[in-house]
């Protein structure tokens, strides 16, 4: 076998192995998307009822709560970025990081100091590499977040927002995550969790035009709101984690699908080249044999004379 042909054969073997791996990863991601979507759906009733309750307290009482009133001069804001622990997901992480950076820039332009909180190793690596300060980071659960994980993430944020700004607390809480719109479309979005704007909440729950009944609060509207808002934040963070997980798996599936397709194409091209190389080799051998035979014949004819 000629050297050229051997090189092609070796490359075909290696690309075939890669294709097998990416194909397997694609199928794993596809099954995980379905699972993650199911989790998003399972968490919806809780989120919906909680949102309804928050709207009910917010509109049904004149309670002024620090978490629902906007500070006059917001000085510090917390930004929670949700990225993933692992890459191989196309532009998933860079889109989320870019959205977080745009938000940070906007907040800083408006004169706010930004505290960054990060979920996922990829986002943390990006910030560490640029030596930017990260207040707290979490990792290890982005593929399959549980409610306990969301609580763990929410705890320092709730603590920060309850503190006075002078003591290192924050006035606002923003979250950047990747919204799962469909298998093909996921977009990085940012939204402000706190202070709560009741119009947005009402719109989200689809209850804008619904007239809420006059509730009796047990024990009191303030206490209910006190207990409700941290749960609301946790549930929103949980939802964001789940959506990001689903989006990450969908992005991985897409990235791996195109990797598999590309590998297939590469294998086709390489086999054509290998075939051509083999054919060229055969042709050359034939012409060498023919050339050699005629040279011999010529020599024999010469000696006969």
């Amino acid at each position: 076998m000629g050297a050229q042909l051997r090189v092609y054969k070796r490359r075909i073997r290696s690309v075939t192995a890669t294709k097998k791996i990416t194909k397997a990863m694609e199928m794993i991601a596809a099954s995980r998307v379905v699972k993650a979507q199911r989790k998003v759906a399972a968490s919806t009733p809780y989120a919906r009822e909680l949102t309804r309750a928050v709207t009910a307290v917010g509109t049904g009482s004149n309670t002024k709560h620090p978490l629902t009133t906007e500070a006059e001069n917001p000085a510090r804001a917390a930004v929670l970025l949700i990225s993933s622990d692992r890459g191989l997901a196309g532009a998933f992480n860079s889109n989320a990081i870019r959205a977080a950076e745009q938000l940070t820039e906007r907040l800083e332009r408006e004169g706010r100091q930004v505290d960054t909180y990060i979920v996922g190793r990829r986002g943390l690596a990006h910030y560490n590499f640029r030596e930017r300060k990260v207040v707290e980071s979490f990792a290890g659960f982005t593929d399959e977040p549980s409610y306990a994980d969301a609580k763990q993430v929410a705890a320092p944020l709730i603590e920060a927002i309850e503190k006075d700004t002078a003591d290192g607390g924050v006035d606002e809480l923003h979250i950047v995550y990747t919204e799962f719109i469909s298998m093909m479309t996921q977009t990085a979005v940012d939204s402000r969790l706190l202070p709560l704007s009741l119009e947005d909440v009402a719109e989200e729950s689809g209850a804008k035009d619904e007239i809420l009944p006059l509730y009796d609060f047990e024990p009191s509207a303030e206490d209910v709101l006190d207990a409700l808002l941290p749960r609301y934040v946790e549930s929103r963070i949980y939802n964001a984690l789940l959506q990001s997980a689903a989006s990450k798996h969908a992005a991985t599936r897409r990235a791996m699908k195109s990797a598999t397709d590309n590998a297939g194409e590469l294998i086709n091209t390489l086999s054509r080249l290998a075939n051509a190389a083999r054919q060229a080799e055969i042709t050359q051998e034939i012409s060498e044999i023919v050339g050699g035979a005629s040279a011999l014949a010529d020599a024999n004819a010469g000696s006969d004379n």
Partner: protein
Amino acid sequence: MAADLHVALVAADREVWSGEATLVVARTTSGDIGVMPGHQPLLGVLESGPVTIRTSDGGTVVAAVHGGFISFADNKLSLLAEIAELSDEIDVQQAERELERAKAEGDAHAERRADVRLRAAAGR
């Protein structure tokens, strides 16, 4: 009597139970409260404790609820809890073991959780 209550018992990651009921008894921070059809709209904070639901077909559903909210309006009652388990799902032996361990370690939260589980299991 008015139509039955529609009850939804929802945990953070799943819907635990839903159906029609005639009476729901739950423990709020200011005491036990019983809700029957036609009750005034209500929104309360729940203590961790067992919740008893008397279903329309005469059965009883008991669930252990660890903190959360009760909200009632238009004959629709929702019980929201971070963690909620039906009494049938509770493994009594495991809960007892957890209670022992929590007592030994002096973990008040875990002790309370295990205690609520056991009481819910006893009430089934």
